[in-house]
């Protein structure tokens, strides 16, 4: 009867998410979804900007597009992992990718904790973010 329960408005309260996406429409869409569920959201328009941000402010979770001009999502997670191996805190990193863009095996090997295929269900996205932020 009626709608399925979606997400409580406070699901992501107290969780800081960094969204890395070169497409401004998609970036604002992800920001809006996560803020709707209560998250603190920072955004970066590319992998290099995201890495600079992570050197100054460590988010609880990173959500990154894979295919981006210049440095891509694989480059970003490689750099984040190198810093973790050097002693930095681990940041769970979730990939968002177009259909057929990146093989699941390659994403797993790169160290993404989860891969979401576009089009993304907003509530599934929020639950995945919550799950990995809590596990951290």
């Amino acid at each position, binding site marked *: 009867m009626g709608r399925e329960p979606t997400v409580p408005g*406070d699901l992501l*309260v*107290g969780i800081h998410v960094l969204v890395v996406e070169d497409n401004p429409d998609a970036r604002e869409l992800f920001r809006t979804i996560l803020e709707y569920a209560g998250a*603190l959201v*920072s955004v970066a328009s590319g992998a290099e*900007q995201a890495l600079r941000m992570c*050197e*100054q*402010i*460590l988010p609880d979770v990173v959500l990154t597009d894979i295919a981006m001009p210049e440095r891509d999502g694989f480059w970003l997670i490689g750099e984040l992992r190198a810093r973790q191996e050097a002693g930095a805190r681990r940041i769970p990193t979730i990939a968002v990718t177009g259909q057929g863009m990146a093989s699941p095996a390659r994403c797993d090997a790169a160290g993404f904790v989860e891969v979401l295929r576009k089009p993304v269900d907003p509530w599934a996205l929020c639950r995945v973010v919550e799950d990995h932020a809590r596990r951290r």
Partner: protein
Amino acid sequence: MEREDAGHALRGVYTLLVDDNPVHRDALRDILRYCGAWVRDVATGDEALSVLRETTPSALVVVVRFPGDASWALVRALRAMRPEHGGKMPVVGVGPAGLAVEARAYGMDAYLAEPIDAWGLCRAVSELTE
């Protein structure tokens, strides 16, 4: 700070934020606002001093790029002011690791080494303004 406190830990706290990097400044401003603060953000020490001539913030958050940069001069100028003009205002510095002792010697009340945690920043401002 507990998760559920995040949204109102800084309610009613007027925070002056000084950071010359616009991307980084936006991120810090969003964090402080998320925690409930009312934030005025500026890029330079001169702009900060001009805000301090008009209003009295509850706390100053200042980004340090290197030892002895403009943030040092700003804090020194602030500490030279009368208490009623903000001379004793809590100051939180944010910047490279290894400067905590120096930052305190220059008059900062707390110093957070990068990379910082959003909740750690809110906690530091909250504790100093309670």
